[in-house]
């Protein structure tokens, strides 16, 4: 790189002070190198990360003041489960067979909300006309209620999924998941209301 004019720089191998610019003696295929001291901000980020490393490890493993992942997650999920049981108990306290049929299933906005969930999720197995044409699930319009024909039975079935003691569909063994995992008790009641509204005859005695 003879065409570069770097003659103003002092040649040497080793810069000693900040701001001192030295051009190293050695050249490689014409490539020259300065020997600048390192920028302070860069050094501080490096040192900072090293100190942080020692500090964090010290907090976690030497004195153990931070709970482990397993403790943290188990507590958090347990508290979600408690909330869930509380919400279910809350809904159930006002929910009766008669209320589901005469209040929920006649309330158009609740039935609409239930329908929206049906169209989004249930439709995949129970079909657009609720007759389960693909045989993935039970028909909901054949007037047979395998797991109990009270409105609350239907609510519980959706909330808890196919009961553990049941063998599921024959012969595929298909089971419905517990939609209480996904939806709030109110939403499940809305869904129940929607199903009742499509089977008014079956529930007219409540």
């Amino acid at each position, binding site marked *: *790189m003879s065409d570069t004019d*770097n003659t103003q720089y002092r040649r040497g*191998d*080793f810069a000693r002070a900040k701001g001192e610019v030295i051009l190293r003696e*050695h050249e*490689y*295929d014409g*490539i*020259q*190198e*300065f*020997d*600048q*001291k*390192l*920028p302070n901000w*860069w*050094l501080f*980020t*490096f040192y900072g*990360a*090293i100190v*942080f*490393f020692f500090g*964090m*490890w010290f907090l*976690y*493993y*030497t*004195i153990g*003041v931070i*709970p*482990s*992942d*397993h*403790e*943290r*997650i*188990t507590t958090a*999920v*347990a508290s*979600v489960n408690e*909330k*869930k049981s509380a*919400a279910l108990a809350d809904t159930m306290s006002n929910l009766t067979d008669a209320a589901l049929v005469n209040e929920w299933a006649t309330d158009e906005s609740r039935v609409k909300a239930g329908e929206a969930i049906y169209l989004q999720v249930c*439709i*995949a*197995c129970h079909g657009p006309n609720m007759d389960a044409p*693909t*045989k*993935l699930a039970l028909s909901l319009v054949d007037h047979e209620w395998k797991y109990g024909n009270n409105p609350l039975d239907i609510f519980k079935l959706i909330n808890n999924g196919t009961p553990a003691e049941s063998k599921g*569909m024959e*012969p*595929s*063994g*298909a*089971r419905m998941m517990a939609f*209480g995992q*996904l939806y*709030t008790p109110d939403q499940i009641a809305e869904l129940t209301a929607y199903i009742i509204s499509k089977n008014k005859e079956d529930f007219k005695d409540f």
Partner: protein
Amino acid sequence: MGDKTSITFDDRTPRNFMIASLFWGIIGMTIGLLASSQLSWWQANGKFLEFITFGKLNTDGLDLITFGRLRPLHTNAVIFAFVGNMMFAGIYYSTQRLCKCRTASKLLSLLHFWGWQGIIVGAVLTLPIGLSQSKEYAELIWPLDVAVVLVWVIFAINFFWTLAKRNEKSLYVAIWFYIATIVTIAMLYIVNNLQIPTSLTHSYPIFGGLQDALVQWWYGHNAVAFFLTTPILGIMYYFLPKAANRPVYSYRLSIIHFWSLVFIYIWAGPHHLLNTALPQWLQMLGMLFSLMLWAPSWGGMLNGLLTLRGAWNLLRTDPVIKFFAAGITFYGMATFEGPLLSIRAVNQLSHYTDWGIGHVHSGALGWNGLMAAGMFYWMAPRLWATKLWSISWANMHFWISLVGILLYVGAMWTAGVMQGLMLGQINESGTGLTYEFVETLQAIQLPYILRGVGGLLYLTGFLMCAVNLWQTARSGKMTDVTIEVNLLKSGEKDNMKIGELIFHRAVVYTGVIIGLVSLWFFTPFTMAATILVAIVMVGIVVMFEFRWNSRSWANFHDNLLENYIPFTILVFVAVAIGGLIQIIPSVVVNRHVNVEGRLQELYTPLELAGRDIYVSEGCYNCHSQMIRTLVPDVMRYGRPGIPDDYSHLGESIYDFPFQWGSKRTGPDLAREGGEPIDEKKLVRVGKRDNLWHFNHFLNPRQTSPGSNMPAYPWFFEKKTDFKSLPKKIKVQRQLGVPYPTMTDHEIEQHAREQAMAIAGTVADSAFLPSRQDLSGPELRNYLSETQFTAVVAYLQKLGAYTEQDPDNQPHPLDPDKNLPAYELSTKN
């Protein structure tokens, strides 16, 4: 000064590698573009062929181009074919000039070039037909792995032989990075590909579950480090000062950032497994070392950008400088984003989403791609002794690439953050999740399309580059440069004694500190506190020593640079330490105790066959099998009422290879399976039943409206390979899976019996469009032979385990066991 002689460089090899890089780069990017369109339109998995052949090819999906098989082809093509060939071009070109001698062996150069292209052709032939190990960026089957190692050894011999013959006393910083690349990739590739073949095209890795995860991401992360980063930094150190005609900013920054980079990088692998079942101490190491890696990475960026001081005016006129400056800036951006994503809290949001895809592409397109283009534009006129055909085409290439990258990366950030937030959103009452998985997927369809547009722009840029270089080559003549050099006398280089190396204070102190820190990791409280005090004291001593003896330490390093073997040994030690400390405790010491109270049930022969199909189809590209220790994960994928239903280590302990995954384009499958419904435990029903799976594989959108999963019609045509099962189970037994003794006949019979049982659950209700002639018992017989039955057997087994006593055995090297407050969470 010794005798003078004239030397003609071997410039044919870099020329060939450069052409190969462009060729494969364009192919690899095109495959990426097709794969990205498959995420937006499921028809791109093969249905479109029906349209363009006017119905002659009637298919819902073509196995050869399905996403799960294309994505590995894309990543392997751009990493090993595009960047690999580019790196070899740069290394062969610059090493000769930095060593002032011709590459040692013409034959080895030729073998290296053609061997590497042969491996790439091998990958192109095997990955689309489903021959894959499923380890990311190490998918190639074992015969190709052997070929890779052989070619790499040829490369290493050729390179180090050239160093031995050099006429330049001291090694320039570019060479340091090349050395680190060669030794580290050899180590990583060999260890991660240790495997036992079951046939010419299939094998099982010797590590399973946690061990495999750890080794794979030690490899995967450092393939990024030592294949995509260090060689390109070396190339930057040669070509950038050449092109800018400026001295490198700081020699001592080169030293500090080189050694800290190669030492620290290796430790950061576990950051690919944050919040998973990986032991927490490894996660902590992965995160903390990633944060420490930020400054060393930026050291490279600073040395690059600050070298341009005084040459910034070239940015206006010289496309080479444009590409380099932007490439280095993207390197800085990606290496800032990397540590950020390694913070466990950030990773909760980003992991398994497209943010990760955005991150790697800011590195791959921004750093690797732009550096490659800059180097090509600089090298081509010199290799053909002419001028670049068109500067304005190069400028256009630059701008179109830049827009493409920004569009790509911006779209992926948006998609990743949006999907991450949606998946983690909990409803107002705090009891459930707001969104179904498929809703989050539909929400990111627009960013997916924009990503494709970004990719298309980038590809267009490289097509322009190819035209430009083609025209440049046509206008010139292939030329091998000749120079005059002074021959070095023997004894002027490579004369350091091994004692001078290992007993130098700088080396001893470093060793002592690393040793103490490692002890600190594994010892409980009192001892750990004492060791920490010792570390601080040694640290203070080193600081003073360095202050007083800085000159002699600097001389030691200068001396080291005149001795390539001691230098290489030191690099190898630096890169080996991190892996040793992280992997050995889990692989050797704690191997059989990493079960955390749950021990995976063994796969039946048919389930194993199904698993091998799952692996070969590349399902892991979209489906994870890992419920992280995060509330939304446990709520979404865990079972109701079990607070600790995240994935425990023992649940995947017999998985060879592990399938934890790294991206969720579909939902997690860790608990997809369920309990047996018959006495012989042949049929299981999990979250979904067998008929659901039947319909889903035929047409995913029938059972999951809005899904972008490809259809798998060939699962209903191809036969399960029952005959290979005895051999596979024999190998699994060698790997430590406690299979009971079964004769070959029993194995095959059991598999067939289970297949019949499973087929029986669907045959009465199923409708198979491709075989409408079959029904009832005939359909059952037919289905029992197909891959569908095996895959379903596997899916229904996912998540099966037996409870174990969590505290039954000691964990001799497990920092998590030293936690003062540590109690296993099963107490709830």
